[in-house]
């Protein structure tokens, strides 16, 4: 009897001690399991690294809800309450409440340096005869800004479209368009900066990246985008906490982005 009672006391004491410690916080992040350089299930993307930094900063355990970033992504993850934070969305994104931006990038021209093209402007006359790869979204009245910009200039015959979704059965679905430049399937491509920067670092040939100019076509067709984290509309406390994190840890966030070769545009 005595031994039993002593055991019960120990259990009670442990329970009280546990109550006095802050409960372990869980940071619930919505993420794509196969979308390098942004994220993957192995945690190898820069959004994974920034999420880890955030979790350490907030003394939280990191938990992911994995969902391919397709139509319905926000609905099935953030809005469904399965997770609380989107690590990267454009600051002007309606489906979530966005934080202050933590980086700004641009669509870039990607070409092999040994071609000496040094493309910088969407108005470069050579774009009419070179074979140009662009990322395409598909249907539904939307497409990538460079796809619009080239067609607005009448540059269509020599444009080769690559699905922005790529082949999801492969480890890096977004790599296809950069591979096409590397292999010489196209002379140059116009690619969203973070993907271009990351894949360019690891290709066989030396690839040159130049931000496209102008920075926008009027009306309302930007090639430069601010990127923020996103939370549910109304989740004000979490947004403020993330804003505070972004302000305090700017140096470390920048270092992570630099490590992945993310081209950043002046202004942030």
């Amino acid at each position, binding site marked *: 009897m005595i031994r039993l009672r002593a055991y019960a006391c120990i259990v009670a004491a442990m329970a009280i001690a546990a109550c006095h410690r802050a409960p372990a916080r869980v940071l619930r992040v919505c993420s794509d399991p196969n979308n390098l350089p942004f994220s993957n299930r192995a945690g190898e993307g820069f959004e994974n690294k920034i999420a880890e930094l955030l979790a350490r900063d907030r003394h939280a355990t990191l938990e992911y809800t994995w969902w391919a970033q397709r139509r319905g992504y926000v609905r099935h993850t953030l809005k469904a309450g399965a997770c609380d934070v989107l690590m990267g969305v454009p600051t002007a994104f309606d489906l979530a409440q966005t934080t202050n931006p933590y980086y700004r990038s641009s669509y870039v021209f990607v070409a092999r340096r040994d071609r000496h093209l040094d493309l910088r402007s969407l108005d470069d006359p050579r774009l009419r005869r070179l074979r140009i790869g662009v990322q395409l979204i598909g249907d539904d009245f939307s497409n990538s800004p460079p796809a619009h910009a080239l067609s607005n200039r009448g540059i269509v015959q020599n444009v080769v479209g690559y699905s922005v979704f790529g082949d999801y059965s492969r480890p890096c679905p977004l790599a296809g368009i950069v591979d096409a430049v590397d292999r010489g399937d196209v002379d140059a491509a116009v690619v*969203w900066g973070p993907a271009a920067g990351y894949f360019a670092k690891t290709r066989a040939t030396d690839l040159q990246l130049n931000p496209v100019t102008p920075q926008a076509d009027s009306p309302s067709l930007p090639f430069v985008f601010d990127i923020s984290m996103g939370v549910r509309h109304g989740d004000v406390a979490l947004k403020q906490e993330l804003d505070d994190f972004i302000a305090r840890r700017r140096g470390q966030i920048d270092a992570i982005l630099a490590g992945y070769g993310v081209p950043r545009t002046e202004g942030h």
Partner: protein
Amino acid sequence: MTSVDPAALQDDDGQWVLPAKNYASTRFSGLTEINTDNVRQLGVAWTFSTGMVSGHEAAPLVVGDTMYLVTPFPNILYAFDLARPGAPMKWSYDPKPLGAAKGVACCDLVNRGASYANGSIFFNTLDGRTIAVDAATGEPKWIAQLADINKGETITMAPLVVKGKVLVGNSGGEFGVRGWITALDAASGKIAWRGYSTGPDKDVLIGPSFKPFYADYRGKDLGISTWPGEAWRIGGGTVWGWISYDADLNLIYYGTSNPGPWNPGQRPGDNKWTATTFARDADTGEARWAYQTSPHDLYDHDGVNEWVLADLQMGGQTRKVAMHPDRNGLLYVLDRSTGEVLSAAPYGFVNTNHGVDLKTGRLIDASDQEMKGTRQGVVTRDNCPGAPGMKDWQPSSFSPTTRLLYIPRQNLCEDVEGMSTSYIAGTPYVGASVVFKAGPGGNRGAVTAWDPVGAKVAWEVKENFPVWSGTMVTASDLVFYGTMDGWFKAVNARTGDLLWQFKCGSGIVGQPIAYKGPDGREYVAVQAGVGGWAGAIVAGDLDPRDPTAGNGFGRVMADLKKATTRGGMLYVFALGGGR
């Protein structure tokens, strides 16, 4: 030995073995027990809850004493024993489709039904498979993986079995996939032939027997030359609608979806063979003729709607025609032997085209002079009909006694209001902000009875919401359809007068059927369960404050959330209800 071939079974009004009842796709039942006098006594005989919340678009099948039902994703196939009280479940088959397919589906997780032939039920799964299941036991006979969700392909259409071949097409134009129709050997599931909707003639199965009616369609490899560069490789033209078949001509008929990608400035040319109807040899798949309803589509006006086959007296002679209410707002009557357009008339308010030039067969585009279209950076107002068209996938029916086509449809226009930023696969992009709204009159839907010989409206019932269900017509002059707020209705096929209605638990986007039970009574069955593109605001619990939610349907359908809730239920009705 009773016949097991749908070619014979399609004429038995006791059964409903094909998605559209018969190869002519009339959705006409010869049953007459339920008529205009006694339809008021129609009551619920039995029900079945699917437990699912996506749009329930499929028609049930009835083969012998068994009813078969395929659900939205996860695409479970049920068999019910009609010979026993309450039609208890005989078996169910769960194909366990990959959850990842949900992220690839364009517009809710729908399935449009199954086909029966030779002891098997054939149906498709959202993750791109065609499955043959033993109709008696529920055991799978074969499974063919046809579409690849990793490339954005899904399958939502109902397959059609013709002469021992299962005809299947892909979905996924939103992802820039290349459309195809594939014929599988019904016994083995092996691919017999595949015809693409874009690319070189050999891929499209265009050869020496291709005899299109119009000069526009003659020329080598138009599936390449009507596109810039290699854009045909990602040009769309998916095959997610309906297939019809004429046994005498041995031709199948189906339409392809709109071209991609958006914006149209990127793909100058006619973009063949998107938004195009093909007549193909049922055995070999070789194209016999083609007709493009919307060359260089600007509006998302897919050509996948049903082709209803009938022999009509026109101009003093019997014409073998095919009738087709297109998304672009025109009701086409074609000579189905040749592909000649006999008439093309608007069956609702249209300002995006001026009809068809009957000399050339070409649609007369109104986008320039009327300031219509969806082009990057161009604000346009009151494009009528908008992207969902005058009518979407929901099939019409045709009565050989009234000689009228009963068309369930929308009355929706759209505004294109500039650009908004979005984000997918880690990439920011820019889209036109497209917002739908009610067309002239303020009603968002209608059922239109169309006289195909006179090319005019016979009568029309206005509905508050788009009519996203199919129609079915019987030999006793009853037309059945459902509304998105849950009313299942029977109207007089000659006048449109409402004769009976029943309020179901959820909005109806399914397809009614009629059959004769083992007890000799006539039954009418339909699935309720709101959803689909128009109903995604309820099925997907979208935010009605976002006008562009549901790809344009958000604002115009905001009040649907107050009118109905989601949840699938099969309803079966009979005179006097259950006994």
